[in-house]
């Protein structure tokens, strides 16, 4: 009640004070009336009444104090005072805020990413009871130590496993749908009908997969995004490749599939899918086409190991006899992946938060250094406040308020930067054919984290300067005696921190240099085609307006594209180098050799020549080459060590083909993949499914990319065009990971460099503040300015040198290790080493430059006179 009255007063302050003043003047008037009645004249009465009343201002002040919330008033005072102080030293504020921002931005960004990816659990019930079942290749050096499960294998397992109460199937599938009159590419998951029951994911509204008609479940995100969360969507028709599916329900809000990064928006029962899209059946019925992820719900009391053992039994007994591709090396493997992921996520988050805390501690130590130097320079002011009666607690509080304000500024800027960064991140990824809807948001957990960040860091960097700066020693403070100083001796821990920071910056910059050089090394790997050719490509997914896949004839499209002004050559094909996918495998039979799997592929007439794939022998495919095939150099060597294979016949998937050309080993998935034997047959002109068109143009192909896609869309309205880019872009996109890593390491290196610089600046400034009088005396006694500058610089030089030595001690063994593994690397690593040292030294000297420069501005007379 009392607090309420006080707050009420705070709000109505002005009017309440006006009333009080009026009341007091009424009081005087009544007293005057009385005195007049007692016989005084007006003038006497007035002065007597005023005398009796006393000091009106004091009475008002005391009345006001009765209401005031003292701590709040003082807090506001402290805030105003802090703002005034900051205005007077904007340089220091900018520096302190900057070093905090440097720590806050990665803190907030990483924490919100970890919060989203690692901490938010997947909304399944009892994740400890859910096991992921897969196959393990027990051989050492196996290409794929773990294997997914094919659909027929899943059916067998589902029939035979008794240790789980349910077994569910899931397979990622890109689909084309029509939403609000727009065609859209979405990620769907083909799932078994019991999928949501096994995982224990609720469907609200709606129910999971009813039997009466083809239906699917949509994600909560899609419901919100495309249907505005309308309640009447149940039963609405959503066409998938033109087939009519009814929306049966909406999955629980946070459920985007079992993978938080590769999210799904639709769940389609796999059996319904196979009925409506029979062309997928052949592929899905292959036992060796293992693309399914399967989940089992453990029966009560059953351990994952029992499931592994049971799967093992099924593999040995039941799966193998049916399996055309006999794989006796596979064993069963089941583990509670979701629960493990949850636990792992917590551990990784804890480690991440710890690393971020170290970063924050370093930044705070730097800010503390800057504030200590500032407190030293403000000693006189502090002493005056103490002389006027300010208590130590009050001074500490005022100083902490200033720290919290610095921290708040930094948090505001940090949050804004982190937000921008999060919005930028998806754009940094190479364009994916199917967009992944990944929302990066600042949720309540993140806000809590930011608030604790502000408070903890403010205490961390503010407390020591506040404590030391408020030390009550009036006389020395007022005299500004340099013999006694709050900074005392060097704080060794800060020096150690600076050394560690210099070392970290050095190692990070060096690593960035190494990754950059490994990128250069990768660039020297021959991609097997000529990225500099003026060629634009685009992939067409032919469908009708409703998204129904159709067969198309490529010839008319070629004619249409050839009419684009300037186009010199057009071609189509299916196998594009560096497309990220290695394509499919075919069975190769040659006389006198065991049948084996090699990579297959299809290309239209002159497709490879258009892409600039060099031919080692023979020629490219032609229109009439129904039975012809191209082989890569690796396959040619395997067939005949001399490589003379032109005209030879081989059997591919049972059909006889004649080799007409040998092409240079072109990288298939990426330049990092080892080259595998490969055979390319003719892509027929009439076909269904995606097909890539390439046009060779004069000059800059970038200008033709849009023309190519619009040409394709015009040829088949309703179709979807993806991956339209130039050959150069295709090549560059394949180095995305290395380029991103280089950027990330350079970013981190520059970040720690910035931290180091602020730290060094703080130390040098403190040194200058502490000894400015001594310097003045030395100058007055005839020391040359450069000698004094040397004194200031010495600290910075020693710390930087220490850090560089430590950094090199860490970096050189790494460089040695890499040099011994990769030939031709030593020159690069020496350059990277030299460059990183140069950057660190430059930054360190730049940080010390300002305090050193101040030496020049010392006026010995002025300083000594102020004694």
């Amino acid at each position, binding site marked *: 009640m009392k607090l309420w009255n006080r707050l009420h007063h705070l709000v109505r302050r002005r009017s309440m004070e006006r009333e009080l003043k009026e*009341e*007091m003047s009424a*009081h005087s008037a009544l007293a005057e009336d009385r005195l007049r009645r007692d016989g005084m004249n007006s003038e006497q009465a007035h002065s007597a009444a005023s005398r009796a*009343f006393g000091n009106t201002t004091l009475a008002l002040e005391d009345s006001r104090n009765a209401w005031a919330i003292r701590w709040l008033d003082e807090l506001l005072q402290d805030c105003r005072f802090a703002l005034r102080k900051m205005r007077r030293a904007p340089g220091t504020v900018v520096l302190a805020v900057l070093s905090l921002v440097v720590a806050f931005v990665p803190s907030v960004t990483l924490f919100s990413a970890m919060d989203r990816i690692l901490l938010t659990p997947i909304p399944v019930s009892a994740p400890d009871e859910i096991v992921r079942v897969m196959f393990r290749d027990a051989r050492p050096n196996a290409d794929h130590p773990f294997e997914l499960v094919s659909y027929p294998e899943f059916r067998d397992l589902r029939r035979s496993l008794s240790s789980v109460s349910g077994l569910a199937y899931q397979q990622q599938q890109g689909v084309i749908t029509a939403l609000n009159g727009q065609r859209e590419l979405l990620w769907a998951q083909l799932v078994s009908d019991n999928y949501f029951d096994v995982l224990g994911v609720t469907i609200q509204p709606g129910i999971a997969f009813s039997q009466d008609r083809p239906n699917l479940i949509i994600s909560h995100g899609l419901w919100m995004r495309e249907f505005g969360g309308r309640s009447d969507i149940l039963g609405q028709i959503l066409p998938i490749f033109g087939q009519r599916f009814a929306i049966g329900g909406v999955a629980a809000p946070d459920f985007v599939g079992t993978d938080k990064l590769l999210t799904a928006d639709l769940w389609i029962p796999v059996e319904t899918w196979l009925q409506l899209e029979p062309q997928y059946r052949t592929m899905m019925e292959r036992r060796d086409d293992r693309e399914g992820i399967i989940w089992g719900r453990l029966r009560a009391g059953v351990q994952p190991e029992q499931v592994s053992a049971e799967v093992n039994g099924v593999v040995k007994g039941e799966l193998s006899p049916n399996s055309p591709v006999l794989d006796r090396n596979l064993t069963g493997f089941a583990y509670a992946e979701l629960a493990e992921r949850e636990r792992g996520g917590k551990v990784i988050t804890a480690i991440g938060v710890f690393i971020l805390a170290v970063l924050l501690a370093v930044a705070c130590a730097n800010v503390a250094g800057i504030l200590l130097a500032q407190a030293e320079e403000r000693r006189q002011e502090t002493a005056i406040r103490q002389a006027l009666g300010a208590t130590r607690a009050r001074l500490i509080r005022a100083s902490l308020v200033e720290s919290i304000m610095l921290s708040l500024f930094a948090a505001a800027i940090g949050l804004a930067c982190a937000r921008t960064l999060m919005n930028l991140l998806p754009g940094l990824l190479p364009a994916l054919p199917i967009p992944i809807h990944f929302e990066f948001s600042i949720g309540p957990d993140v806000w809590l984290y930011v608030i604790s960040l502000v408070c903890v860091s403010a205490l961390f960097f503010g407390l020591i300067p506040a404590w030391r700066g408020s030390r009550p020693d009036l006389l020395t403070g007022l005299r500004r005696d340099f013999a006694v100083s709050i900074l005392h001796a060097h704080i060794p821990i800060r020096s150690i921190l600076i050394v560690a920071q210099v070392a970290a910056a050095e190692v990070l910059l060096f690593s960035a240099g190494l990754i950059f050089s490994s990128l250069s090394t990768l660039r020297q790997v021959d991609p097997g085609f000529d990225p500099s050719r003026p060629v634009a490509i685009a992939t067409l997914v032919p469908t009708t307006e409703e998204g129904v896949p159709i067969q198309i004839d490529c010839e008319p499209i070629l004619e249409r594209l050839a009419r684009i002004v300037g186009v010199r050559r057009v071609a189509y094909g299916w196998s594009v180098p560096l497309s990220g996918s290695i394509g499919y495998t075919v069975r190769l039979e040659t006389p006198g050799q065991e049948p084996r799997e090699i990579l297959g592929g299809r290309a239209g007439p002159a497709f490879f020549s258009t892409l600039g794939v060099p031919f080692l022998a023979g020629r490219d495919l032609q229109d009439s080459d129904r039975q012809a095939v191209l082989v890569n150099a690796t396959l040619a060597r395997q067939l005949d060590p001399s490589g003379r294979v032109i005209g030879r016949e081989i059997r591919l998937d049972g059909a006889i083909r004649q080799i007409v050309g040998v092409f240079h080993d072109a990288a298939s998935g990426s330049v990092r993949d080892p080259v595998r034997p490969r055979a390319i047959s003719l892509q027929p002109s009439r076909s269904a499914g995606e097909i890539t068109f390439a046009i060779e143009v004069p000059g800059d192909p970038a200008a033709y990319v849009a023309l190519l896609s619009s040409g394709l869309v015009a040829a088949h309205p309703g179709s979807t065009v993806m991956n339209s880019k130039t050959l150069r872009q295709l090549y560059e996109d394949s180095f995305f990971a290395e380029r991103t890593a280089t950027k990330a390491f350079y970013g981190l290196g520059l970040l720690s460099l910035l931290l180091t610089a602020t730290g060094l600046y703080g130390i040098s400034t403190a040194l200058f503040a502490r000894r400015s009088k001594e310097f003045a005396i030395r100058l007055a006694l005839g020391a040359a300015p450069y000698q004094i500058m040397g004194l200031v610089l010495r600290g910075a030089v020693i710390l930087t040198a220490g850090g560089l030595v430590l950094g090199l001690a860490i970096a050189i063994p790494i460089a040695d290790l890499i040099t011994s593994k990769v030939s031709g690397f030593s020159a690069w690593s020496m350059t990277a080493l030299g460059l990183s040292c140069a950057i660190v030294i430059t930054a360190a000297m730049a940080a010390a430059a300002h305090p050193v420069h101040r030496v020049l501005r010392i006026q010995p007379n002025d300083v000594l006179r102020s004694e």
Partner: protein
Amino acid sequence: MGKNNTPDFLPGTLEMLILRTLSFGPQHGYGIAQHIQQVSRDALKIGEGSLYPALQRLLLNDYVVAEWGASENNRRARFYRITAAGRRQLAQEKRSFDSLIAAIARVMEAT
């Protein structure tokens, strides 16, 4: 600051006197001061510098409420009225004051 506004009184007694005065009926500030002065036969003169802060404290604690009205000679004045909480406070303060006075008397009259 603001701790010792009533140097002539024991702490809290001014508030008690004001509450007692108001227990006879609503009164404005001048009236309260006059009443205390008259009843104490000019022994207790309340300076306005003490009166108004004390009234503010009483308002803050909801022991009195204030409203504007007209004084006997038709001047606009602010009248204070004691509340139920104020009466309870008055009774309690009177009890502790009585025991204090009795204790002081015992000390002074001891032989």
